[in-house]
């Protein structure tokens, strides 16, 4: 056969049939998005909860999603290289402080952005030293960094911000903010369309206006980091090497890849990204550093990363879902979250139908069906949600989506496994 002479007598003896892999392609993505918009639009029309697709809500959703997404991206980088990073919160806290300090010290918001990244990266460096060099359990190092992050920033504030006019022990003076941009010339037209409350048209106008007007440059940067991370991790040699350290470090080692270097690089970038998330909080979401400003967003970022199955697109979706529901509950919680109940009822009902028709799982379908009816009944019998519960709309939604979606989570194979050169199996 082949003139090379080196030919296996036959094709491989038995090649097990390869399972079909579900691929998220652009058409799939766009139609899912379209369906979601239609659903929200219909709900908006039925319930009158205009905030579901208002420009303000979308804009706020993006702003709330960015710090979570940045923390999640941080988690992604580090875990892709096999280092579990539960210290994101601490690195984020460092980012809030450094961001504000940098912006104030240099009088330039972008210096703050850079400082925030560096502050977070310092936390990352500590994590890398502990986990990569000393091989310490990744979780405990992360926990220690969370504790340290809080202590160190509180202490630093006392010796810096407290001395500044307008600052104090637990907050910085107002900081210069990065600029805000809009796509020119579309704001007024879209606003007019939006105020018409037409089915779909106004909703799309609201969403587009929310996304394209009054967006901080920092937000633009943060959003760009998602495809950039994808590109670097999945399309470059560096990224392939980095991921191979999270999947099978010995294999990487056996091909001459410097595993330590890549793990260090990944954890440093991870810290920097979490730090950027923190800096976003102090520079864009607020006008100053405030102690306790992160409010657990690092953990939510970690959850978003797992939600997104350790992939940039997935974690962006997770962060957006969280940001969107958080925006809705914070803005006009009672009304919007109540309207969300209808969305949930419809989604669960759709899941029930899918389970029944496509999967033939009758029992699951019945359970989902009952759940859908129950949610609908609650929706129909109430007119608002108690304020205590609106605040957990993002959390409940996340759980709901996760429990409905098929779980094919696939963490990197060597995630959290200590590695030592020449010793790994």
């Amino acid at each position: 056969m082949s003139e090379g002479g080196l030919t296996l007598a036959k094709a491989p003896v038995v090649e097990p049939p390869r399972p079909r892999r579900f691929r998220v392609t652009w058409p799939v993505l766009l139609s899912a998005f379209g369906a979601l918009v239609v659903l929200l639009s219909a709900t908006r029309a039925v319930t009158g909860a205009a905030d579901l697709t208002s420009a303000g809500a979308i804009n706020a959703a993006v702003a709330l999603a960015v710090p979570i997404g940045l923390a999640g991206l941080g988690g992604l980088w580090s875990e892709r290289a096999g280092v579990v990073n539960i210290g994101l919160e601490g690195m984020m806290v460092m980012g809030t402080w450094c961001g504000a300090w940098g912006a104030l010290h240099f009088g330039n918001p972008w210096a703050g952005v850079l400082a925030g990244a560096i502050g977070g990266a310092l936390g990352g460096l500590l994590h890398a030293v502990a986990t990569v060099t000393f091989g310490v359990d990744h979780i405990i190092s992360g926990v220690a960094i969370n504790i340290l992050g809080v202590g160190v920033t509180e202490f630093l504030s006392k010796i810096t911000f407290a001395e500044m006019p307008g600052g104090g022990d637990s907050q910085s003076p107002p900081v210069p903010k990065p600029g805000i941009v809009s796509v020119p010339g579309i704001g007024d037209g879209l606003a007019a369309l939006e105020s018409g409350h037409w089915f779909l048209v106004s909703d799309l106008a609201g969403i587009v206006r929310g996304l394209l007007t009054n967006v901080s440059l920092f937000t633009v940067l943060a959003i760009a980091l998602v495809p950039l991370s994808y590109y670097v991790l999945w399309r470059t040699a560096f990224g392939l090497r980095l991921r191979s350290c999270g999947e099978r470090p010995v294999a990487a080692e056996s091909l001459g890849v410097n595993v330590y270097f890549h793990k260090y690089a990944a954890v440093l970038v991870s810290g920097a990204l979490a730090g950027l998330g923190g800096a976003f909080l102090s520079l864009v979401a607020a006008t100053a550093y405030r102690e306790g400003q992160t409010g657990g967003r690092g953990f939510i970022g970690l959850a978003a990363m797992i939600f997104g199955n350790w992939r940039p697109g997935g974690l962006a979706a997770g962060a957006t879902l969280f940001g969107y529901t958080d925006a809705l509950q914070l803005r006009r919680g009672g009304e919007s979250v109540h309207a969300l109940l209808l969305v949930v009822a419809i989604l669960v009902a759709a899941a029930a139908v899918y389970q029944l028709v496509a999967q033939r799982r009758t029992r699951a379908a019945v359970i989902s069906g009952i759940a859908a009816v129950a949610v609908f009944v609650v929706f129909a019998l109430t007119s608002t949600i108690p304020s205590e519960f609106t605040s957990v709309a993002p959390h409940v939604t996340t759980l709901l989506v996760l429990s409905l979606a098929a779980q094919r989570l696939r963490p990197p194979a060597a995630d959290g496994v200590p590695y030592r050169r020449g010793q790994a199996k």
Partner: protein
Amino acid sequence: GSEEPATSAKPDASASGAPQEKGPKVGLAYDIGGRGDQSFNDAAAAGLDKAKTELSLADTKELEAGSGETEAAKEERLRLLAQGGYNPVIAIGFAYSASLKKVAAEFPNVQFAIVDDAAATGPNISNLLFAEQEGSYLVGAAAALKSKKEHIGFVGGVQVPLIQKFQAGFYAGAKKIKPDVQIDVKYLTQPPDFTGFNDPAKGKTAAQGMFDAGADVVYHAAGGSGGGVFEAAKSAKGLAIGVDSDQAKTAAPEVQGVIMTSMIKKVDVAVFDFLKGFTSNSLKPGTTVYDLKAGGVDYSTTGGQVDDIKAQLDELKQKIVSGEIVVPDKTS
């Protein structure tokens, strides 16, 4: 070994005495955040600072609470102060209620004061209370008067009874002026998640939602999250109402212009008054309510934005002072 009397188990001699010639050693126990929080604790600190310059204090010691601590830790803090010869001892915040009551009983010769709590009573305890609802009533009225869209909002930091007092007064005041005014209410977090007092991003989003929905004046009782409310007001070209101190003076310069008034809660005055009473031996234990009448709460006029409605507000104030209007302190 340490020379600090604080570490010795037996009460110090100086703890037993009334103020000495040198002036008293004052102990102050802050709530979480401590001095420098630009809010509640700082107001107390301001009172202490004023006392330091105006009254002759021998010494002061300020301790602050840690997050997630137990009653026992609070008790220990007060006890260390009392034992260390600090007299009087002032506790900032209702969280000290139970612990103060206990420690005060152990140190009958030390004078104690607690801010925001009337439940801990005793012969050596002064309870410094504020009628937040009365001040909030006035700014509620101001909001209703200033609102062109008959739609205003309230952003609370954490949904606890104390903040609900602010809401109750604000609500009553606004309804008094315009019974049909629409009032949006949002609490940023639920206890024991107290990050709602420190999360400007959430404050901003909540206020933005209100402005987007048509509100044009938003009042916040959300501590550090208030900065976000001001920002939202600024970008929505609406108005905001500050809290605790005259925020048109203390907030970030760019947003000072949107703060039409603030509900002032004069913790500094209460602390100073208490210390003054102590040094002049005119202290009477029990509850002192810092209400409108006593000037403990008020609204501010910095910036002149409420000058046009000042007459109406002062009339309401008068009615409250005279008892003609009783402001509810609970949300219905």
